[in-house]
């Protein structure tokens, strides 16, 4: 299967485009089999939970036209390859791989199964049968950063991260830049815990940030544990992936909700009507993929209005947190005034903005 030439691709594409017309009546009775591989357990109440919610919405929306399966706790290493391969062999025609670290494994298996469509979440490598999709979470972080800038009395805010990958770096930068737009003196202390899900370590890291003077702490890991500590300590935090207000009603200012259902429904429909093709989706607040939970009533009116203004700016396309001038940690200008970072630049970003204190 090694050499897939351009001509083969054209032939395959022609065959594929003919399929809907020729084949549909015969296939009508068979449901489209859709599979998901998840990083964490579906009960993590964070990242994987949100993806699974999208899967359930897909089942509900398309009923017996689709049949979904999932595999949870799939590691981001070579062990993902046989799992993806098995799912493809079991007749799944559309496979969603829902974490950054599955990138090369997806491409490897996609090459072996040219008639199976793969969609990789948060990655940047595509193939004729591999689509990438992501949400512009940094837009949500610009909203929470604005709130943090207003709510922080100490001028020091915390960011609890997982790994130094573009998705997290982007979040740290958006959060910090938005907070600095409110209060230019804001400093962000950053701790990466090298895990997406480890409640005990998340708690310890939040305690550490609080003890070092942070009074508003954003989390980019998946459990509500940091929020529960913020509540005990009387400081503030934000929900990650889902509205987590019931875990910490006093500390939870708002949350960035991941909404995947519409994407899964749209892509399954594209498979059913034959219009699926390799694309790159990166949608945000405007398209409804990123949603801001209701504000906690303790957030003052003027702060709520400031946050709404950011949301509104993203809806209308008039606001971008990554508009220059932007400086990196050393003070060097990375983005000149009047220019904004492109989505391509953001997708591979590996430097922090001025005011971020990182190891």
């Amino acid at each position: 299967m090694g050499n897939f030439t351009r001509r083969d691709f054209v032939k395959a594409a022609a065959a594929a485009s003919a399929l809907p017309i020729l084949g549909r009546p015969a296939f009508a009775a068979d449901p489209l089999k859709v599979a998901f591989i998840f990083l964490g357990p579906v009960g993590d109440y964070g990242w994987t939970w949100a993806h699974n919610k999208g899967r359930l919405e897909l089942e509900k929306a398309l009923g017996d036209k689709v049949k979904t399966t999932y595999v949870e706790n799939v590691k981001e290493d070579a062990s993902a390859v046989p799992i993806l391969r098995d799912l493809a062999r079991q007749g799944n025609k559309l496979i969603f791989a829902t974490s950054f670290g599955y990138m090369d494994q997806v491409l490897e298996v996609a090459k072996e199964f040219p008639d199976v469509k793969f969609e990789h979440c948060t990655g940047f490598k595509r193939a004729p049968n591999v689509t990438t999709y992501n949400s512009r979470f940094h837009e949500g972080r610009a909203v929470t950063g604005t709130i943090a800038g207003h709510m922080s009395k100490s001028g020091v805010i915390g960011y609890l991260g997982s790994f130094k990958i573009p998705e997290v770096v982007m979040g740290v930068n958006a959060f910090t830049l938005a907070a600095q737009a409110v209060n230019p003196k804001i400093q962000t202390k950053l701790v990466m815990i090298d895990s997406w899900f480890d409640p005990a370590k998340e708690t310890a890291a939040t305690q550490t940030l609080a003890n070092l003077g942070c009074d508003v702490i954003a989390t980019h890991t998946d459990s509500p544990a940091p929020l529960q500590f913020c509540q005990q300590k009387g400081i503030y935090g934000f929900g990650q992936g889902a509205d987590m207000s019931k875990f910490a009603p006093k500390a939870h200012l708002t949350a960035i909700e991941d909404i995947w259902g519409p994407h899964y429904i749209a892509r399954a429909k594209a498979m059913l009507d034959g219009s699926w093709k390799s694309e790159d989706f990166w949608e945000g607040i405007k398209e409804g993929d990123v949603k801001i939970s209701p504000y906690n009533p303790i957030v003052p009116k003027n702060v709520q209005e400031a946050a709404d203004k950011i949301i509104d700016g993203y809806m209308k396309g008039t606001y971008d947190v990554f508009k220059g001038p932007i400086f990196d940690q050393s003070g060097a200008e990375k983005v000149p005034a009047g220019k904004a970072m492109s989505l391509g630049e953001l997708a591979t970003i590996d430097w922090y903005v001025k005011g971020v204190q990182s190891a």
Partner: protein
Amino acid sequence: MTLTFLIDALITVIGITTPILLAASGVLVVEKSGVINLGVEGMMLVGAITGFAVGFEFSDPWIGVGAAAVAGAATSMIFAVLVLSLGTNQVATGLALTIFGIGLSSLIGTNYTGFAALPFDPPFPDYLAQDPIGRVIFGHSAFVYFALILVFAIGWFLSHTRAGLVLRAVGENDFSAHSIGYPVIAIRYAAIAFGGAIAGIAGANFSMVITPLWAEQMTAGRGWIALALVVFSGWRAGRLLAGAYFFGVLMTLELYAKASGYAIMPSQFWAAMPYIIAVAVLAFISARDGRSGKEPACLGKPFLPNG
């Protein structure tokens, strides 16, 4: 650096150390009896969900902790029957128990995802824990005090009581213990049940105090660190306590260093450290002569009196 700052850091150390210390204390007793049970992580998870669910349903965290201990012990009995009565391989059976515990806890937990538990208040009254000093002495959950009392009690039990000596004899030389009339299998059943109960309580520490909620696999590998720690301690209670706090301090220092903008070592190094040290200790003790600080001689070997 103020006193409050140091005390807050110490509270983080205590919080991160306690569940590991608890689980490791249970492991120590089991291994002293000559049995290696790698199912700690699984038993912890069963304890975590049981403690959360029962505490939640009865609105009483103490009943939850009790139930977690019972559930941990019950889970360990599956292992005990297989390895003691049926003579299966301990390592393989223990691994299977971990996988079983992960699955069982996820299954039970399906209906409990997304709820917050009632706060589990410290056993001492609030007014004692007002100032920083009071907080570091009286402000912890019951788990912290229980873990400290337990490790001292185990140390005393193993070296100063007749029952403790019998337990060690069973672990060092099961056939001799058997031939002078000690019920080797029954003693090992009891040790495994005790280890299971303590692992269950260690799990409940996660779901009831550290993060008062249930999330699948919330123990995130602490059971394995507990197993490594027992090796590190050379099967001694005093060193176990010191070793657990040593790891707790290292983990906390790593977080403080990062949050202050320093990376002392790549973080993967810190994550691997407990295991690296455990391997180093194993290499060290096997290179050394004499029996002191070595693993119990019958560790992991099946004992079939009639076989």
